[in-house]
């Protein structure tokens, strides 16, 4: 391997002959191992890496920790702000490595700080108050780490007040009489740093509860400790958050898989899922509509500069953006507040569901015969669920049976006080032995089915004062959704 090299833009020179495969573009290359302050080499006989510092002991690191360490060089923004670089001194390197290695088996920032405290690593600084706010939440955690530790919840307002106070003052060291001390109950001088990280906002306060001011070197040390390990802290916070999300999801999963499930529980669970889905879609819509709107605005400005073909392109861009916005709005409508009844155009809803199921129904012929402008009062979310389930069931059955020219026909029959929506396919149909159990919970003939689909749909239909029947049919499967109908007088 050719000798490659990295030069730090603050003229700290790193020499390495390993291709570390780093994406960072602010690192440039230079030569001469003798000039280097830091040398990175492959450790002999091992997969790890040696970090050599002039006048210091060699340090060994795994590749993961090495990359982590080098990424601490990254400036906060691409303009290369001084913050990360200027604190890097030779003496910080071993400390930072130590902390990275220390953090390796910790599952939370609290654990890391506690561990560092217990190992007397933080004795110069004193006890710690860590305030952590997951971005967007109305509360934050305040964790005290000392010989005894405790934790409590504070409001976002208090968190912000402390955060802003620290940020505005631009200092690291705070006198005993400072405002923020009241908010946390600190008596004495303290050291404080605050950060906006990827997924969290973080405040780190250290105090010995003394009235003597901290020495200059300790203040600088604290600053370095926080700045230099900020990335490690951020990663631990994200790790903890991810684990929390995973365990919440697992709890939901476990509840579903447990057999002691009354229909009410299943229904509740389903309701919560719909609600969660609705919320997710809501968030998605807002997250997407902002950038789309930005594109729309910019496009309209740019389009003024063009004429002819180029202007036509801009018009196309406008149409595409409008289409994207419409799709998002339509999906949101399908999943909004389930309990409310709304006027629904049956044909339109059906088409939306076919769009939702596109990946499964692409190659299936659709024959839709619904009276145009047929409207009913019902719940869009629940109807969507029922249509969706019946259509997906057909599609999957026909795929498993390799039905030739698969087709789904949907048509309606309107009576005086009820309406019937027929879902007919030309697939393998329903096996007579399965008929009785069709709508039973947990009954499934699919390898990967939960058996809940039709049971839930039946439940939803009943909630809408309707019912789903399975009819005998020679051509395939036929399901009929029957719903109450107000009659033509209520159309429009």
């Amino acid at each position: 391997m050719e000798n490659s090299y990295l030069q730090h833009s603050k003229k700290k020179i790193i020499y390495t002959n390993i291709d570390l495969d780093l994406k960072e573009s602010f690192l440039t290359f230079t030569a001469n191992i003798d000039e280097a302050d830091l040398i990175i080499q492959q450790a002999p006989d091992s997969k790890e890496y040696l970090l050599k510092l002039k006048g210091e002991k060699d340090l060994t690191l795994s590749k993961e920790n090495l990359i982590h360490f080098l990424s601490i060089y990254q400036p906060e923004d691409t303009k290369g702000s001084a913050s990360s670089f200027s604190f890097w001194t030779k003496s910080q390197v071993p400390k930072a490595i130590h902390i990275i290695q220390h953090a390796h088996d910790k599952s939370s920032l609290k654990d890391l700080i506690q561990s560092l405290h217990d190992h007397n690593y933080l004795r110069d600084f004193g006890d710690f108050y860590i305030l952590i706010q997951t971005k967007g939440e109305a509360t934050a955690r305040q964790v005290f780490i000392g010989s005894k530790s405790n934790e409590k919840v504070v409001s976002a307002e208090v968190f912000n007040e402390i955060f802003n106070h620290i940020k505005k003052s631009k200092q690291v060291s705070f006198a005993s009489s400072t405002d923020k001390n009241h908010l946390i109950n600190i008596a004495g001088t303290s050291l404080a740093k605050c950060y906006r990280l990827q997924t969290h906002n973080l405040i780190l306060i250290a105090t010995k509860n003394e009235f003597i001011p901290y020495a200059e070197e300790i203040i600088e040390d604290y600053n370095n400790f926080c700045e230099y390990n900020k990335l490690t802290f951020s990663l631990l916070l994200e790790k903890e958050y991810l684990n929390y999300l995973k365990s919440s999801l697992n709890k939901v999963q476990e509840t579903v898989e447990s057999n002691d499930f009354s229909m009410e529980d299943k229904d509740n669970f389903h309701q919560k899922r719909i609600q969660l889905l609705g919320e997710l879609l809501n968030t998605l819509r807002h997250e997407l509509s902002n950038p789309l709107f930005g594109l729309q605005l910019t496009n309209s400005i740019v389009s003024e500069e063009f004429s002819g073909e180029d202007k036509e392109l801009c018009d196309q861009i406008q149409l595409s953006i409008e289409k994207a916005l419409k799709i998002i709005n339509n999906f949101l409508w399908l999943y909004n507040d389930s309990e409310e009844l709304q006027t629904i155009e049956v044909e339109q809803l059906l088409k939306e569901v076919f769009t939702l199921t596109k990946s499964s129904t692409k190659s299936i012929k659709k024959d839709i015969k619904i009276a145009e402008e047929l409207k009913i009062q019902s719940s869009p979310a629940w109807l969507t669920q029922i249509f969706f389930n019946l259509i997906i069931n057909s599609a999957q059955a026909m795929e498993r049976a390799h039905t030739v020219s698969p087709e789904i026909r949907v048509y309606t029959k309107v009576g005086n006080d009820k309406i019937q929506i027929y879902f007919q396919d030309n697939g393998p149909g329903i096996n007579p032995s399965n008929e009785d159990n069709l709508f039973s919970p947990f009954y499934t003939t699919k390898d990967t089915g939960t058996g809940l689909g039709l049971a839930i749909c039946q439940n939803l239909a009943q909630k809408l004062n309707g019912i789903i029947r399975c009819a005998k049919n020679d051509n395939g499967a036929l399901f009929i959704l029957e719903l109450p109908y107000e009659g033509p007088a209520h159309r429009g």
Partner: protein
Amino acid sequence: MKVLLIEDEILIQKSLKMLMQKKGADVTAVANGNEAIALLEEKNFDRIICDLMLNDISGFDVIEASKKRYSPQEISNKFIIITAYSSEQVLEKAKAYGCKVINKPFENINGVINEFLEVA
């Protein structure tokens, strides 16, 4: 007219700034709430257009902070809230400040720009 635009979606920010400047306004644009609060402490603005969901704090936090400089009446006249969220709570809160709320995306872009630059 001196306008302060607080919007963190870059394309929206740049476009709205350009569109207002074309109509002769003097526009300062920032992408986060804390910068806006700092600016509001230093300077006076005739119009403040504020997105609600900012990276660091909420648009309402900015309005609260501006109370140091402006009376409730001035706040009601100067601030226009733009937002993609149109929930009941948001509308209620805006009503409490007396501020106009305009939903993103704008259907009539030109009309909205004129509304922005309407003398209070």
